[in-house]
């Protein structure tokens, strides 16, 4: 069974690594943030599997903490204030 747990966590890690392509390519900021969010879910699954494989209960705590905080970066992203950039563009237009 341990082999299966480790094998599946290896597979999930590989999906994270391949998913990095989406962050690198974008094209929009929302795409990148979305990919990072997806990695959070996958990481939780890897932690649960590794915790079962090594029968180390502390890893499930780490998974729980990850589950609590997967949303925080995305929330910071959507609450981000984009005003100054727009102002700058308007200023540029005026001076041109």
């Amino acid at each position, binding site marked *: 069974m*341990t*082999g299966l747990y*480790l*094998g599946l*966590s*290896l597979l999930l*890690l*590989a999906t*994270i*690594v391949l998913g*990095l392509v989406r*962050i*690198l390519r*974008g094209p929009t*900021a929302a795409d*990148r*943030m979305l*990919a*990072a969010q997806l*990695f*959070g879910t996958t*990481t939780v699954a*890897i*932690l649960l599997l*590794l915790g079962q494989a090594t029968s*180390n*209960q*502390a*890893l499930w*705590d*780490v998974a*729980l*903490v*990850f589950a*609590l*905080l997967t*949303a*925080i*970066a995305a*929330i*910071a*992203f*959507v*609450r*981000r*204030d*984009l*005003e*100054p*950039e727009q102002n*700058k563009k308007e200023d540029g237009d005026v001076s041109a």
Partner: protein
Amino acid sequence: MTLLFGHLIDLLLAVSLTVLAWRLLATSDLFKATVLFIAFGLLMALAWVRLDAPDLALAEAVIGAGITGVLLLTALRHLDSGARVARMSGRSGRRSLRVLLPALGIMPALLVLLCLSSPHIRSTAGLTASVIERLDQIGTDHPVTAVLLDFRAYDTLLETAVLLLAVVAVWSLHPVRPIFSPEPISPAQRGLLRLLLPVLIMTSLYLFWRGSHAPGGAFQAGALLAAGLLLLLLSEQRLPGRWSGMFLRLLLAGGFMIFLLVAAGALVGTGTLLDYPGGGASWLLLSIEAALSLSIAALLATAVIGGRPSDRSTEFPPRRKDPAGEEG
């Protein structure tokens, strides 16, 4: 089979950490670099798990993947287009730095070879045995907590001082600005907050309690609380003006002050700084830990907000005025 999968996980993690670091430092798109850095934090947490250090994995999960992301995303607004090093001394300085390039290539290659080839590099037994041997004299069962609060209490004391200094430095640079957009937040986000926050506080207490005998403890609990505070701030909740004065400052300095008091008390009582008396150690450690947790939560959250509370009558951090309201 099991061993092979383990090796492959280690190899894949190590390679992807390196590639990720290279990509995130090579890009000039700062938003992309930030998101890559959040992913880097996730992989670091997994690396700590593989290295059998769940304490570090907990801290990295909260800080690397959570709080740093918020810090960088809010800072991007001010740094996005400019903020380069001035060009004046740049040219000649950079050219002379190019002399270092061969060294930057050869040194890591040599070190990596050394690290991978030599089995003797890790021949020492380490300090695990001596820590565990003395564990029953201290009021905790978890070796890492014992090291943090007893054997190397100097480090921890000075660490809290460094955190306090960092907040003082941030506060001395500029008054706080409104950090988030004025548009109304989605009701779904408010609902999520209402659901997450109680669980988050309970988890923080749980980690605090676990710290006495298993991975967890004051630092991780404090960092998790700080993340909860940031989650509140991201959802339009603010500290009222009357709390951002003396109360906030006491909270920030509290952990350091109590730790220092205990250290001084030990100096008077036993003649050695930070040498806790035998019987009361457990109780003392617990009170230090509680004060440290609250202080660390406040320190990390204020450091991320950036900027001192300006006026006693306003909220902290201040609200941005709605542009539509200004026009009308």
